[in-house]
Protein backbone atom coordinates (compact mmCIF):
# COMPACT_ATOMS: atom_id res chain seq x y z
CA UNK A 1 0.00 0.00 0.00
CA UNK A 2 1.19 3.57 -0.62
CA UNK A 3 2.15 5.31 2.64
CA UNK A 4 2.45 8.95 3.54
CA UNK A 5 6.06 9.50 4.58
CA UNK A 6 6.32 13.15 5.27
CA UNK A 7 4.10 16.17 5.05
CA UNK A 8 5.88 19.46 5.42
CA UNK A 9 5.36 23.05 4.38
CA UNK A 10 6.99 22.39 1.00
CA UNK A 11 6.52 18.73 0.15
CA UNK A 12 3.98 15.97 0.62
CA UNK A 13 5.84 12.71 0.17
CA UNK A 14 4.32 9.29 -0.52
CA UNK A 15 6.23 6.03 -0.37
CA UNK A 16 4.81 3.95 -3.22
CA UNK A 17 4.24 0.19 -2.85
CA UNK A 18 6.21 -2.67 -4.39
CA UNK A 19 3.35 -3.24 -6.84
CA UNK A 20 1.09 -0.30 -7.62
CA UNK A 21 -2.20 -1.70 -8.90
CA UNK A 22 -5.97 -1.32 -8.66
CA UNK A 23 -5.77 -2.80 -5.15
CA UNK A 24 -4.19 0.49 -4.03
CA UNK A 25 -7.06 2.54 -5.43
CA UNK A 26 -8.79 3.42 -2.14
CA UNK A 27 -5.68 4.15 -0.10
CA UNK A 28 -4.15 6.24 -2.90
CA UNK A 29 -7.34 8.29 -3.29
CA UNK A 30 -7.34 9.04 0.44
CA UNK A 31 -3.70 10.14 0.25
CA UNK A 32 -4.46 12.37 -2.74
CA UNK A 33 -7.31 14.03 -0.83
CA UNK A 34 -4.94 14.58 2.08
CA UNK A 35 -2.34 15.96 -0.32
CA UNK A 36 -4.86 18.34 -1.96
CA UNK A 37 -5.84 19.70 1.45
CA UNK A 38 -2.27 20.12 2.64
CA UNK A 39 -0.24 23.30 2.43
CA UNK A 40 2.56 21.55 0.51
CA UNK A 41 3.05 22.76 -3.03
CA UNK A 42 4.94 19.67 -4.19
CA UNK A 43 3.81 16.02 -4.19
CA UNK A 44 6.65 13.51 -4.28
CA UNK A 45 5.89 9.90 -5.19
CA UNK A 46 8.89 7.84 -4.10
CA UNK A 47 9.14 4.73 -6.31
CA UNK A 48 12.39 3.38 -4.91
CA UNK A 49 10.77 0.03 -4.02
CA UNK A 50 8.18 -0.06 -6.86
CA UNK A 51 8.84 -2.98 -9.17
CA UNK A 52 5.58 -3.00 -11.09
CA UNK A 53 2.72 -0.68 -12.10
CA UNK A 54 -0.32 -2.02 -13.95
CA UNK A 55 -2.64 0.01 -16.20
CA UNK A 56 -4.90 0.85 -13.25
CA UNK A 57 -1.83 2.19 -11.41
CA UNK A 58 -0.94 4.36 -14.41
CA UNK A 59 -4.54 5.63 -14.39
CA UNK A 60 -4.20 6.53 -10.70
CA UNK A 61 -1.06 8.54 -11.51
CA UNK A 62 -3.02 10.50 -14.14
CA UNK A 63 -5.77 11.20 -11.61
CA UNK A 64 -3.18 12.34 -9.06
CA UNK A 65 -1.69 14.69 -11.65
CA UNK A 66 -5.10 16.19 -12.34
CA UNK A 67 -5.90 16.55 -8.64
CA UNK A 68 -2.54 18.15 -7.92
CA UNK A 69 -2.92 20.56 -10.84
CA UNK A 70 -6.38 21.63 -9.63
CA UNK A 71 -4.95 22.57 -6.26
CA UNK A 72 -1.94 24.29 -7.84
CA UNK A 73 0.61 21.65 -6.86
CA UNK A 74 3.32 19.88 -8.82
CA UNK A 75 4.13 16.16 -8.85
CA UNK A 76 7.60 14.65 -8.89
CA UNK A 77 8.19 10.92 -9.32
CA UNK A 78 11.38 9.99 -7.52
CA UNK A 79 13.69 7.00 -8.06
CA UNK A 80 11.75 4.91 -10.60
CA UNK A 81 13.52 1.57 -11.05
CA UNK A 82 14.38 -0.18 -14.31
CA UNK A 83 11.01 -1.72 -15.16
CA UNK A 84 9.00 1.36 -14.19
CA UNK A 85 11.38 3.68 -16.07
CA UNK A 86 10.94 1.56 -19.18
CA UNK A 87 7.16 1.66 -18.76
CA UNK A 88 7.24 5.46 -18.40
CA UNK A 89 9.36 5.67 -21.52
CA UNK A 90 7.04 3.41 -23.57
CA UNK A 91 3.94 5.35 -22.50
CA UNK A 92 5.72 8.73 -22.54
CA UNK A 93 4.64 9.28 -18.94
CA UNK A 94 8.18 10.61 -18.51
CA UNK A 95 6.97 13.63 -20.51
CA UNK A 96 3.86 14.09 -18.36
CA UNK A 97 5.60 13.91 -14.99
CA UNK A 98 8.76 15.39 -13.56
CA UNK A 99 11.06 12.42 -12.94
CA UNK A 100 13.90 12.61 -10.43
CA UNK A 101 16.48 9.82 -10.31
Amino acid at each position, binding site marked *: MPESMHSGPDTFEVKMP*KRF*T*FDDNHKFHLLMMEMAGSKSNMLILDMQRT*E*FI*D*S*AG*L*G*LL*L*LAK*EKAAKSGKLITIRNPQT*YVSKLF*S*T*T*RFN*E*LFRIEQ
Partner: protein
Amino acid sequence: MTASNLKLPKGCFDVEQVRRMFQMMLPKQQVLDDIETRFKLRVSSHFEPCDFTGGDFWGCNPVCDQYIAFYIADCSGHGFTSAINAFRLHSFLEDIEDIYIKLIPYNLISVLNAKMCQVLLPGQFATFFYGVINLDNDTITYASAGAPSPILQNKNGNIKILESSGFPLGVNPDATYSNNKVNFKKSDRLFLYSDAVAETFNKKGVMYGEDKLIKMISENAKNKVPDLISKIVSSQKRYRHGPLHDDLTVSIYQRL
Protein backbone atom coordinates in the same frame (compact mmCIF):
# COMPACT_ATOMS: atom_id res chain seq x y z
CA MET B 1 -23.30 -23.10 -24.76
CA THR B 2 -25.31 -19.86 -24.77
CA ALA B 3 -27.54 -17.97 -22.37
CA SER B 4 -30.59 -19.41 -24.12
CA ASN B 5 -29.96 -22.96 -22.92
CA LEU B 6 -28.66 -22.08 -19.45
CA LYS B 7 -30.78 -21.26 -16.42
CA LEU B 8 -28.93 -18.12 -15.43
CA PRO B 9 -29.85 -15.82 -12.57
CA LYS B 10 -31.26 -12.39 -13.44
CA GLY B 11 -28.54 -10.19 -14.88
CA CYS B 12 -26.41 -13.00 -16.29
CA PHE B 13 -28.19 -12.86 -19.63
CA ASP B 14 -26.89 -9.31 -20.08
CA VAL B 15 -23.39 -10.45 -19.21
CA GLU B 16 -23.65 -13.22 -21.80
CA GLN B 17 -24.87 -10.69 -24.36
CA VAL B 18 -21.91 -8.39 -23.62
CA ARG B 19 -19.53 -11.33 -23.95
CA ARG B 20 -21.03 -12.25 -27.33
CA MET B 21 -20.95 -8.64 -28.53
CA PHE B 22 -17.30 -8.48 -27.50
CA GLN B 23 -16.48 -11.64 -29.43
CA MET B 24 -18.00 -10.01 -32.51
CA MET B 25 -15.31 -7.30 -32.41
CA LEU B 26 -12.63 -9.95 -32.96
CA PRO B 27 -11.80 -11.15 -36.48
CA LYS B 28 -13.87 -13.97 -37.89
CA GLN B 29 -11.95 -17.09 -38.87
CA GLN B 30 -13.35 -16.82 -42.41
CA VAL B 31 -11.72 -13.38 -42.80
CA LEU B 32 -8.39 -14.73 -41.56
CA ASP B 33 -8.64 -17.74 -43.90
CA ASP B 34 -9.33 -15.39 -46.78
CA ILE B 35 -6.28 -13.26 -45.88
CA GLU B 36 -4.13 -16.39 -45.80
CA THR B 37 -5.36 -17.50 -49.22
CA ARG B 38 -5.20 -14.10 -50.94
CA PHE B 39 -2.12 -12.60 -49.33
CA LYS B 40 -0.11 -15.59 -48.08
CA LEU B 41 -0.28 -14.19 -44.59
CA ARG B 42 -1.14 -16.56 -41.75
CA VAL B 43 -2.75 -14.98 -38.68
CA SER B 44 -3.05 -16.93 -35.43
CA SER B 45 -4.24 -15.72 -32.05
CA HIS B 46 -5.23 -16.39 -28.48
CA PHE B 47 -7.60 -14.20 -26.45
CA GLU B 48 -8.51 -14.81 -22.82
CA PRO B 49 -10.37 -12.13 -20.83
CA CYS B 50 -9.72 -12.01 -17.09
CA ASP B 51 -13.33 -11.04 -16.32
CA PHE B 52 -16.65 -11.89 -17.98
CA THR B 53 -15.55 -9.64 -20.82
CA GLY B 54 -12.39 -7.74 -21.69
CA GLY B 55 -10.73 -4.50 -22.63
CA ASP B 56 -8.35 -6.04 -25.18
CA PHE B 57 -9.17 -6.56 -28.82
CA TRP B 58 -7.21 -7.06 -31.99
CA GLY B 59 -7.88 -7.23 -35.70
CA CYS B 60 -6.57 -7.53 -39.22
CA ASN B 61 -8.14 -6.27 -42.47
CA PRO B 62 -7.06 -5.77 -46.06
CA VAL B 63 -7.06 -2.03 -46.85
CA CYS B 64 -6.52 -2.31 -50.58
CA ASP B 65 -4.44 -4.39 -52.99
CA GLN B 66 -1.22 -5.51 -51.29
CA TYR B 67 -1.88 -3.54 -48.10
CA ILE B 68 -3.11 -5.23 -44.91
CA ALA B 69 -3.75 -3.33 -41.69
CA PHE B 70 -3.52 -4.94 -38.25
CA TYR B 71 -3.83 -3.71 -34.69
CA ILE B 72 -4.00 -4.60 -31.02
CA ALA B 73 -5.72 -2.53 -28.32
CA ASP B 74 -5.84 -2.65 -24.54
CA CYS B 75 -8.25 -0.39 -22.65
CA SER B 76 -7.25 0.31 -19.05
CA GLY B 77 -9.23 -1.18 -16.18
CA HIS B 78 -11.28 -4.37 -16.12
CA GLY B 79 -14.85 -5.56 -16.59
CA PHE B 80 -17.59 -3.25 -17.85
CA THR B 81 -15.45 -0.08 -17.74
CA SER B 82 -12.78 -1.38 -20.06
CA ALA B 83 -15.33 -3.22 -22.22
CA ILE B 84 -17.33 0.00 -22.80
CA ASN B 85 -14.16 1.86 -23.74
CA ALA B 86 -13.11 -1.02 -25.99
CA PHE B 87 -16.49 -0.80 -27.80
CA ARG B 88 -15.99 2.96 -28.20
CA LEU B 89 -12.49 2.58 -29.57
CA HIS B 90 -13.54 -0.20 -31.92
CA SER B 91 -16.43 1.94 -33.22
CA PHE B 92 -14.13 4.91 -33.83
CA LEU B 93 -11.75 2.61 -35.70
CA GLU B 94 -14.55 1.12 -37.82
CA ASP B 95 -15.83 4.62 -38.66
CA ILE B 96 -12.58 5.55 -40.40
CA GLU B 97 -13.14 5.11 -44.12
CA ASP B 98 -10.48 7.39 -45.58
CA ILE B 99 -7.91 5.09 -47.15
CA TYR B 100 -5.11 7.65 -46.68
CA ILE B 101 -5.74 7.64 -42.95
CA LYS B 102 -5.86 3.85 -42.88
CA LEU B 103 -2.60 3.54 -44.81
CA ILE B 104 -0.67 6.03 -42.65
CA PRO B 105 -0.46 4.65 -39.11
CA TYR B 106 0.41 7.86 -37.27
CA ASN B 107 -2.54 9.60 -38.94
CA LEU B 108 -4.93 6.88 -37.86
CA ILE B 109 -3.62 6.89 -34.29
CA SER B 110 -3.87 10.69 -34.12
CA VAL B 111 -7.51 10.52 -35.23
CA LEU B 112 -8.29 7.87 -32.60
CA ASN B 113 -6.45 9.81 -29.90
CA ALA B 114 -8.49 12.96 -30.59
CA LYS B 115 -11.73 10.98 -30.32
CA MET B 116 -10.73 9.05 -27.20
CA CYS B 117 -9.61 12.27 -25.48
CA GLN B 118 -13.19 13.51 -25.87
CA VAL B 119 -14.91 10.51 -24.33
CA LEU B 120 -12.62 8.97 -21.71
CA LEU B 121 -12.83 9.91 -18.05
CA PRO B 122 -9.70 11.20 -16.31
CA GLY B 123 -7.40 8.30 -15.51
CA GLN B 124 -8.72 6.11 -18.35
CA PHE B 125 -6.69 5.35 -21.48
CA ALA B 126 -6.02 2.73 -24.13
CA THR B 127 -2.75 1.45 -25.50
CA PHE B 128 -2.86 0.78 -29.23
CA PHE B 129 -0.53 -0.53 -31.93
CA TYR B 130 -1.38 -0.19 -35.62
CA GLY B 131 0.62 -1.44 -38.57
CA VAL B 132 0.23 -1.74 -42.34
CA ILE B 133 1.89 -4.59 -44.20
CA ASN B 134 2.98 -3.69 -47.72
CA LEU B 135 3.32 -6.92 -49.68
CA ASP B 136 4.84 -5.10 -52.68
CA ASN B 137 7.97 -3.97 -50.88
CA ASP B 138 7.92 -6.48 -47.96
CA THR B 139 7.66 -3.90 -45.19
CA ILE B 140 5.54 -2.98 -42.22
CA THR B 141 4.88 0.68 -41.43
CA TYR B 142 3.61 1.15 -37.91
CA ALA B 143 2.88 3.57 -35.10
CA SER B 144 2.18 2.94 -31.45
CA ALA B 145 0.31 4.54 -28.58
CA GLY B 146 2.17 3.01 -25.66
CA ALA B 147 1.55 -0.65 -26.56
CA PRO B 148 4.02 -3.38 -25.55
CA SER B 149 6.83 -3.62 -28.12
CA PRO B 150 6.00 -6.21 -30.80
CA ILE B 151 8.64 -8.88 -31.53
CA LEU B 152 9.78 -9.49 -35.09
CA GLN B 153 11.49 -12.77 -35.95
CA ASN B 154 13.04 -13.27 -39.37
CA LYS B 155 13.30 -16.59 -41.20
CA ASN B 156 16.72 -17.24 -39.67
CA GLY B 157 15.26 -16.91 -36.19
CA ASN B 158 16.84 -13.53 -35.44
CA ILE B 159 14.79 -11.33 -33.13
CA LYS B 160 14.14 -7.59 -33.33
CA ILE B 161 12.12 -5.69 -30.71
CA LEU B 162 10.13 -2.95 -32.38
CA GLU B 163 10.27 0.55 -30.92
CA SER B 164 6.75 1.33 -29.71
CA SER B 165 6.75 4.39 -27.50
CA GLY B 166 3.89 6.87 -27.69
CA PHE B 167 1.25 8.44 -25.47
CA PRO B 168 -1.62 6.02 -24.84
CA LEU B 169 -4.89 7.10 -26.46
CA GLY B 170 -6.96 9.49 -24.38
CA VAL B 171 -4.12 10.86 -22.25
CA ASN B 172 -2.86 13.88 -24.15
CA PRO B 173 -4.95 15.72 -26.79
CA ASP B 174 -1.77 17.38 -28.10
CA ALA B 175 0.14 14.11 -28.50
CA THR B 176 1.97 13.56 -31.76
CA TYR B 177 2.83 10.16 -33.19
CA SER B 178 5.31 9.00 -35.80
CA ASN B 179 5.71 6.13 -38.24
CA ASN B 180 8.41 3.47 -38.12
CA LYS B 181 9.23 1.01 -40.88
CA VAL B 182 10.72 -2.52 -40.77
CA ASN B 183 11.25 -5.29 -43.30
CA PHE B 184 8.71 -8.11 -43.25
CA LYS B 185 9.75 -10.75 -45.74
CA LYS B 186 8.66 -14.27 -46.65
CA SER B 187 8.71 -16.59 -43.58
CA ASP B 188 9.11 -13.66 -41.13
CA ARG B 189 6.86 -13.60 -38.08
CA LEU B 190 5.53 -10.70 -36.04
CA PHE B 191 4.30 -11.20 -32.46
CA LEU B 192 1.84 -8.77 -30.91
CA TYR B 193 0.78 -9.26 -27.30
CA SER B 194 -0.95 -7.52 -24.44
CA ASP B 195 0.92 -6.53 -21.29
CA ALA B 196 -0.59 -9.44 -19.34
CA VAL B 197 1.67 -11.87 -21.22
CA ALA B 198 4.86 -10.47 -19.69
CA GLU B 199 3.30 -9.02 -16.53
CA THR B 200 2.40 -12.29 -14.86
CA PHE B 201 3.80 -13.17 -11.43
CA ASN B 202 4.77 -16.52 -9.93
CA LYS B 203 4.40 -17.65 -6.32
CA LYS B 204 7.59 -15.83 -5.33
CA GLY B 205 6.34 -12.58 -6.85
CA VAL B 206 8.77 -12.69 -9.78
CA MET B 207 7.46 -11.37 -13.09
CA TYR B 208 7.38 -13.60 -16.21
CA GLY B 209 8.88 -10.73 -18.21
CA GLU B 210 9.63 -9.97 -21.83
CA ASP B 211 12.91 -11.94 -21.69
CA LYS B 212 11.13 -15.26 -21.07
CA LEU B 213 8.75 -14.53 -23.91
CA ILE B 214 11.63 -13.76 -26.28
CA LYS B 215 13.44 -16.93 -25.19
CA MET B 216 10.33 -18.99 -25.87
CA ILE B 217 9.92 -17.43 -29.32
CA SER B 218 13.62 -18.03 -30.12
CA GLU B 219 13.51 -21.67 -29.02
CA ASN B 220 10.43 -22.33 -31.14
CA ALA B 221 11.50 -20.63 -34.35
CA LYS B 222 10.98 -23.84 -36.33
CA ASN B 223 7.63 -24.69 -34.74
CA LYS B 224 4.33 -23.86 -36.39
CA VAL B 225 2.71 -20.67 -35.10
CA PRO B 226 -0.37 -22.34 -33.48
CA ASP B 227 1.99 -24.69 -31.60
CA LEU B 228 4.04 -21.72 -30.44
CA ILE B 229 0.91 -19.93 -29.18
CA SER B 230 -0.08 -23.07 -27.23
CA LYS B 231 3.39 -23.20 -25.71
CA ILE B 232 3.33 -19.52 -24.72
CA VAL B 233 -0.12 -19.84 -23.15
CA SER B 234 0.66 -23.06 -21.27
CA SER B 235 4.03 -21.72 -20.08
CA GLN B 236 2.26 -18.61 -18.85
CA LYS B 237 -0.39 -20.68 -17.02
CA ARG B 238 2.24 -22.84 -15.34
CA TYR B 239 4.15 -19.76 -14.23
CA ARG B 240 1.16 -17.81 -12.98
CA HIS B 241 0.24 -17.86 -9.31
CA GLY B 242 -3.55 -17.52 -9.03
CA PRO B 243 -6.04 -16.35 -11.64
CA LEU B 244 -5.42 -13.99 -14.56
CA HIS B 245 -5.30 -10.35 -13.42
CA ASP B 246 -5.54 -8.85 -16.89
CA ASP B 247 -6.76 -9.85 -20.35
CA LEU B 248 -4.34 -12.03 -22.24
CA THR B 249 -4.03 -11.49 -25.98
CA VAL B 250 -1.49 -12.84 -28.45
CA SER B 251 -1.68 -12.43 -32.22
CA ILE B 252 1.00 -13.66 -34.60
CA TYR B 253 1.42 -12.77 -38.27
CA GLN B 254 3.55 -14.95 -40.54
CA ARG B 255 4.39 -14.39 -44.20
CA LEU B 256 4.09 -17.70 -46.09
